[in-house]
């Protein structure tokens, strides 16, 4: 059976099903991270003392990762714009760059985690590290998930461009919305965990 409203908009919502679907999913993600941020506030304000993030975490490394993720958001949106311009080759370059930048983010995170674990800083060490590992760990999983979807559209999934370019473009846009959300979460994680 053919999936309805993949390229044409529903009359009642004025949207494709994929578009409303991804936004509802992102709404649930806002609540997921919202619950964790609320827990962070609760634990931090209830603690007799709390360390500044920059006394424990590596700010230059996190700043570098912020730049990497913001750049990946631009390449992601440029990948979509390339499809809108019907330039599939350019799409591949931008989407490939997005995936690679995601990989760079994860590699930097690997080094950051390795350093902390090497000096015996575990999630069980204190509340600060518990919050740090939980929030950044969940965020990292999102980066990995977004990379997997983007890699699908860069690789095998790109065949759809030949058969249904409009649907493919919409799917890349939806994947991009998720990727930008991941960037958005990091924009708030960076100052609250590393700088304050």
């Amino acid at each position, binding site marked *: 059976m053919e999936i309805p409203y993949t390229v044409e908009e529903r009359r009642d*919502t004025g949207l494709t099903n994929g578009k409303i679907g991804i936004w509802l999913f992102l709404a649930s993600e806002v*609540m997921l991270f919202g*619950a964790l941020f609320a827990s962070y506030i609760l634990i931090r304000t209830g603690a007799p003392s709390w360390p500044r993030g920059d006394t424990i975490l590596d700010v230059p490394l996190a700043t570098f990762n912020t*730049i990497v993720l*913001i750049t990946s958001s631009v390449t992601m949106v440029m990948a979509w714009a390339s499809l809108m311009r019907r330039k599939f080759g350019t799409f591949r370059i931008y989407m490939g760059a997005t995936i690679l930048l995601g990989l760079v983010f994860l590699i930097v995170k690997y080094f950051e985690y390795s350093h902390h674990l090497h000096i015996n800083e575990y999630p069980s060490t204190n509340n600060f590290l518990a919050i740090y590992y939980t929030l950044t760990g969940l965020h990292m999983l999102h980066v990995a998930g977004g990379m997997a979807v983007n890699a699908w559209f860069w690789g095998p999934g790109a065949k759809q461009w030949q058969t249904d370019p409009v649907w493919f473009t919409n799917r890349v846009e939806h994947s991009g919305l998720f990727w930008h959300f991941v960037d958005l979460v990091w924009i708030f994680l960076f100052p*609250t965990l590393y700088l304050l």
Partner: protein
Amino acid sequence: MTTEHASGGHGGHSAADIDRHVRVYISVFVALMVLTVITVAVSYLDLATPMAVTVALLVALIKGGLVAGFFMHLVSEKKLIIAVLALTVAFFFVLLGLPVITHSNGFWIP
């Protein structure tokens, strides 16, 4: 089905539209980089915690607004999406408010 343009939920786009979009993306990218530098620079000023939190969150809100507004196209998105997000944001602030209620004098939690 037309193969001229993806519908994507914000109508058809001409080549000129996309070129304009791309120029906006570049401008937003530059703004995000500048704001990132500001975020880090302010953290070295050793401001008092309430002021540091206010400035950091303000800059993060501006950055988040730029990403959501332009990269996620919320500035030109349909009303239904905006309504869904408005509801989400309202409940998000309820969540963030729970710690405040918890720390009040037994107003909510005995």
